[in-house]
Structures are given as C-alpha cells and as structure tokens.
C-alpha cells in the first residue's frame, strides 16, 4: 500500500554498496577490516502453481484461460471444475529497485502421444520493489479436439531482469 513511502524512507537510510573499509596502515602493524555489502535479489515460488483445474473436453478444440488472479474462463463446449490457480512468485530485493518480469510466451506440453500448447502472461511486466513483492503467471491452455489421454509435462521460464 505505502510502497513508495517505504521506498522513500528507505532511500534516506540505505547505503547501496559499501566497498571495503581498509584500515590505514602506517608504521604500526594493523589488520584490515573489510566488508562488502551487496544488493541482492531473490526469486522464489510462493507455493501456488499454475493449475488449470479439472477439464472435460468436448468434441472440438477449446481453451481454458487462467487469469492473474487464478480464476478460470472456459470456452464454450468444454467443462471446467475444481480449484484453479495462477503460479505465484515472490521477489525480494532492495526497496525502490526497479525490475522487469518476463516469462516464456508459449510453452509446449508433451504427453506420451500428443502435445498441447499454453500461452503465458505475467501479471506485471515491471515492478518497483517495496517489500512483500509478488507477481503471478496465468495462461491459456489450448486443448485440441480429441486430445489424447496421458500425463503432460512442460517447463516455462520466469525471469527477473535488472536494468
């Protein structure tokens, strides 16, 4: 809520990077004390997966769309039930830092005898970190007419980029 306020406050107290503090060495023996504080970024799953729920397909090709909030929208001629969710990710880093978010736009799902594609959309493409930052990835699954039975697997990339 008060993301930018927090970011603003943080900016006044935050030292971005402290490079080695070398103790002066004169005639007396001294030991150097060095500290190097780096800005970091972390990306982690928040535990929710991109879940298309349970689908009973029809005779014709159809789509199942999961929006950023995880709600499903089934095209006509297809039955959807069960709980659906969008994939959730947490990002941490220095407050006020700007990052870009990108995902694969399409992902191929491979089954034993057939394939399917899904298109993916991240909920945001850019964010200014303010603590507790998260984004979701929803998508649209393209179910073919008479899609073969089986277990389908696929990978999709999620990338957090610093400028």
């Amino acid at each position: 809520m008060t993301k930018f306020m927090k970011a603003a406050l943080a900016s006044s107290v935050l030292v971005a990077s402290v490079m080695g503090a070398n103790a002066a060495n004169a005639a007396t023996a001294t030991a150097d004390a060095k500290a190097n504080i780096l800005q970091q970024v972390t990306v982690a799953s928040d535990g929710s997966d991109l879940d298309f729920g349970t689908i009973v397909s029809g005779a014709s090709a159809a789509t199942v769309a999961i929006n950023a909030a995880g709600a499903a929208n089934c095209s006509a001629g297809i039955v959807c039930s069960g709980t659906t969710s969008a994939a959730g990710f947490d990002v941490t880093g220095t407050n006020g830092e700007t990052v870009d978010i990108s995902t694969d736009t399409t992902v191929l799902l491979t089954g034993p005898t057939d394939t399917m594609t899904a298109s993916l959309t991240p909920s945001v493409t850019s964010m200014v970190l303010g603590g507790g930052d998260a984004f979701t990835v929803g998508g649209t699954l393209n179910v073919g007419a008479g899609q073969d039975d089986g277990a389908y697997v696929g990978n999709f990339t999620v990338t957090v980029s610093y400028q």
Partner: protein
Amino acid sequence: MTIQRFQSLKRCCIGLGAMASALSLSSTPAQAAGDLLVAPTRVVLDGQRGTEVILNNIGSETATYRISLELRRMTSEGRLEDVSEEQENDIERAAKEMIRYAPRRVTLPPNQPQAIRLGVRAPEGLPDGEYRAHLLFRAIPEARSVTEKKAPEKGFTIALTPIYGVTIPVIIRQGNLQATAGIANGRLEQDADGQALTFDLSRTGTRSTYGEIRVTKPGSSEPVMVARGIAVYPEVNQRKVSLPVPPEVAAQLKGPVSVEYYEPANTGGGLIARTDMVLR
C-alpha cells in the same frame, strides 16, 4: 505490492455435464526447485580488475544452475528484449567475447553460496565505447521421466514446472565516456494494472545513464516516490519510463512536481537531470 489471489470454482459449466468425449484433466502441483539469490544486481567493469557475483540456493532442495551470457537490447518502451545470434551487432558480439566468467554450471545444496568470477579481456585496439551483456542465472530443472508420473486411467494431467532466472547487466567501459539525460512529457497514465507515472527519459553521449528517479512536491525535501535502477542504454536515445503508483500516491502526485534523476550513491550520487512539471 500485494497481488490479491482468489481461488474461484467454476460454476458455469455444471449444466454441461453431458459432454461427449470425457477427457478429465487435473493439474498436479509442479515441483518448485531452483529458488535463487543473486548479488550484486549490476556489474560495471572498467580496466582489468575483475569481480565476483554471488549465487545462493535459497530453496529447500539441491539445485543445479547454469550461468550464461545473454544479449538484450533496450526498446523505446524501456523493455529489455532478447537478441538472437543472427541479430547480434559488432558491439554486442565484442561484449560477449571479452567477458570471462566461471564456473558456468554449479550444483548447490540449500543455502550454499557460490562466487561466480567475472573478468574482462579487452582485445587490442578495442574502440572506445560501452559494451554490455547480461549474465543469466537459471536453475536447470531436474530431468523427470514420464514413467515417474502415473498416467491417469482416463484423461490427462498437466504438470507445469516454472524455471526461475535472474539477469543482471555486465557493463564494460572503454575510454573516457560521457552522457547526459533529460526528462520530458510527464503524465499520469491509467493502464490495466492501475495508475502509472510515465515520462520520457532521453540520453545523449557515448555511454548509458543509470540511477534513481525521485519525485518531490514543491517545498518538501522528502520524495513522494523513489524508483531505483532506471537505465537508458546506448542503443536508445530515448525511452519511456512507466512506474506503477498506488492510488493514494497518485493523488499526492497530482499538481506541480519535480522529477529528478540521480546517479546511485556508490558512484557519486550526482544529479543527472531534473525537470519541473505539472501532473494531472
């Protein structure tokens, strides 16, 4: 920024239960592996001195990561776009060729950091300029055999595994490079995600500009909003900056403001550009 998540059960389709071919699809939880931490988030190399980037496995399982150099180009929208090998230009190719890094693949148990060493070997007679590539840290998904997942008797299951990655720019500066920037055309925009403060950031000179945007109201020294890590790379002379703002901040921003672009504190913190404007 918290994103509201609500699970919703579909109600619309109950009446359609008499559908023909009964393929049931149930999604199984995808295994999440490869949570990662990267520090620092930007590297500038000038001269022969190398540096290190720390990669840490912050997940709960052992994970393997691949480190690679990627090329990205900034668009006038301020996005970083992938550059394929065929599209590479001479500057980009030179950047990729002179950056040395190792290791390129590491397997880390949970909470195990690894330093990735970075160095530059500039070829003789390298023209002055700024060279840049982006270091990508990406978890490699564990190979999963199809037999590992039990196929359902009827219908199909879906397992989508996210692979996370982080990219950070690695910048090499050769010679004495200069750049200036300007801010113009500030406005509050409404888009699908909410309101955004949008403006054009222009750049002239031989290198990129990088720093933080501070927006202040007249008579106040405390900024209303701050966004760090805003770059304008040499391939563009102007880019759009669009910063999402919550409604209460947007209300505060309306009226006269001054938008300032500062270098980061660790490189001097100097003012790069400043423009007074009226937002509505």
